[in-house]
């Protein structure tokens, strides 16, 4: 029996993926209503393929709000996503509470695995905190790095590239039940000391941030120099030092929260240990600057000429195939448009309160109706194929600002639209 404590995005996806491999799963969350909703098949998150995976695995899954139920588990994943504050700093308080509630119930000989996104040192401190209990019950504690991606989490959970495991004894064999679970997925398992695994997680995100920041910086230079980033990116993909899967699509900075969280952690660690912190600072500062690209374009092309303009916005979620708006560039754009009338469409995410002049509408073309500009903020698939003539007919002025690159490959100039996207000069074909 495999247990999960904490059923946010990480716990829901991972527990379902493990159940799909034939393991019996007992999944706990003490927050009111969470276990009940999942038990009835209601998912609080959007992930392609997850409803189907849950449906096919549900017979092996038990959801509970009672931490004592985890006493039946041979292995317990501590799987609550670590929340971040407004400055992208980690808030470990909820995870600490889950740990305090759950660990005392672990049975003799159980395996505990910290799957949550914890900073270096966390797992060893946990081992120290519960050393008496762990020794008395012969419980083994591991850390495991999660590498899910919002919008592609089921793929990442069911077909992992590798597992990264932190252990107090990296040279020793993994506990049999843990080895069996990991082995079911058929990928390499890298075992290392706790701190290395914890820092591996950060290292992955820092390298991704490096790629994103370099791409965004070069795209910005393309806009000034007169180059087109989409012509340059393939040259990098064919360089084996960079590779075909490198993050080379320009965007509005680094969004979503996870990479930003790890950059903040990296900055804190650099300060704590006296290392140079200019690298994470540069990534964070550049992301902040790039985030306002759409606002600057909108002001330059529309708002400075039509103060009472109506703006259409497509896309609210911070990326496609998710309903998460955490650190959404669209919310940053709306924050920069106080008093400006906005008609907003998103197929999944919902606009919360605090934006009195923004109206969420039912379709992309409804958003365009009478607008003086269209801003495409998230590259949902449906946006790419909306007929240009329909958009032109709905808009009051032919201005399209497309940081999402949704229309990058389209013959936009054929529709006589004033088109701007990242990585090429405004108006360039």
């Amino acid at each position, binding site marked *: 029996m495999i247990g999960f404590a904490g059923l946010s995005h990480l716990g829901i996806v991972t527990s379902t993926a493990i159940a799909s491999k034939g393991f019996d799963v007992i999944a706990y969350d003490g927050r009111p209503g969470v276990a009940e909703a999942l038990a009835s098949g209601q998912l609080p998150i959007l992930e392609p393929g997850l409803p189907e995976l849950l449906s096919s695995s549900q017979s092996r899954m038990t959801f509970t709000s009672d931490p004592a139920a985890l006493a039946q588990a041979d292995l317990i994943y501590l799987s609550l996503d670590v929340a971040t504050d407004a400055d992208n700093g980690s808030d470990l308080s909820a995870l600490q509470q889950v740990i305090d509630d759950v660990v005392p119930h672990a049975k003799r000989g159980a395996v505990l695995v910290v799957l949550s996104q914890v900073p270096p040192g966390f797992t060893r401190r946990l081992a120290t905190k519960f050393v008496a209990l762990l020794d008395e019950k012969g419980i083994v504690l591991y850390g495991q790095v999660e590498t899910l991606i919002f919008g592609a989490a089921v793929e990442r959970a069911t077909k992992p590239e590798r597992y990264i495991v932190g252990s107090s004894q990296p040279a020793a064999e993994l506990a049999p039940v843990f080895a069996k679970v990991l082995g079911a997925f058929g990928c390499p398992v890298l075992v290392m000391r706790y701190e290395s695994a914890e820092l591996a997680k950060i290292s992955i995100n820092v390298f991704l941030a490096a790629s994103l920041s370099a791409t965004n910086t070069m795209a910005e230079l393309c806009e000034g120099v007169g180059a087109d980033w989409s012509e340059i990116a393939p040259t990098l993909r064919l360089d084996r030092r960079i590779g075909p899967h490198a993050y080379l699509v320009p965007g509005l900075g680094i969004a979503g929260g996870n990479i930003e969280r790890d950059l903040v952690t990296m900055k804190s660690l650099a300060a704590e240990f006296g290392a140079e912190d200019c690298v994470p600072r540069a990534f964070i500062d550049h992301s902040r600057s790039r985030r306002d690209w759409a606002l600057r374009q909108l002001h330059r092309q529309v*708002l*400075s000429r039509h*103060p009472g303009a109506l703006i259409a916005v497509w896309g609210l979620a911070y990326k496609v195939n998710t309903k998460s708006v955490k650190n959404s560039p669209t919310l940053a754009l709306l924050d920069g448009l106080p*008093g400006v009338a906005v008609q907003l469409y998103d197929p999944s995410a919902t606009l919360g309160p605090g934006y009195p002049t923004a109206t969420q509408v039912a379709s992309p073309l409804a958003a365009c109706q009478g607008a003086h500009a269209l801003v495409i903020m998230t590259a949902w698939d449906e946006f790419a194929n909306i007929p240009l003539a329909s958009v032109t007919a709905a808009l009051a002025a032919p201005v399209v600002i497309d940081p999402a690159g949704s229309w990058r490959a389209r013959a936009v100039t054929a529709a006589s639209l004033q088109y701007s996207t990242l990585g090429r000069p405004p108006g360039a074909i």
Partner: protein
Amino acid sequence: MLNHTLNPPTAPRRVVVLGGSGFVGSRLVARLQAVGVDTLALSSKDIDLAAPEAVSALARVVRNDDALVFASCLTPEKGGDPRTFMRNLSMAEHVGLFVESHGCAHVVYIGSDAIFKDDVTLVTEDSEQQPSALYGLAHVAREKMITYACGKAGTPLAILRPCAIYGDGDTHNSYGPNRFLTSARADGKITLFGGGEETRDHIFVNDLCAVIEASLSSRSIGTLNVATGRALSFAQVADSVAAAMGTPVQIVPTARKNPVTHRHFDTAAVIKAFPSLAFRSLDEGLRSYVTQPA
């Protein structure tokens, strides 16, 4: 960034402009009076802000429901030496003491982008402050002094840091539109440092005054760099001046003595603070007041 404490915006009862006869101050006074705002312009002839008596002098004329625009400053052509620096600090000291002891409804401090480190090429409100000249250092200190005073008094404070300013009647003769126009009018020639490769942002004085007026009406608090977001090379500036004059002007490059430096402004904060304000391009600004050679 700038936050607004008055919504909807409401013109202050009265605005007192320190430096009211200066290039920016006089434009601001004229603008406010044109829209019916009661305005009191004070210059060094009225009150010597560098003298200790300034505190009581201000107390006699500034009411506690006035908005106060602190635009008075000795600019570099009046002296870049330590004595001028100390006079600039003394002004801030006395204005600060006045605010602490008597208070007013709102203070808007007109600073400068001279506070930023020379090699910062994309300037934001958080850019590193490390001025290379005493003028910039004076503004760094004055910002802190007036912030301290307003903090003690609980007075809302907006700090506005304009980039280079140009417009009709500017006497500062800084390298850029103003000096180019003066020399083009005088001898039909504009002399560039090197080939005029450096890029800088220039804001039309009327547009700066629009930002000040909007800050007053919104009783804004915080810090804002005020620039257009469009930096041009000095060669382009020279071309624009020549075009505005409409008569032949010789643009003369010279041997370069210093490395080329650039400065651009990230104007996201200005856009967010005042989304409906539009800043004239250099060509538009020059055309509004340049007709024929004087």
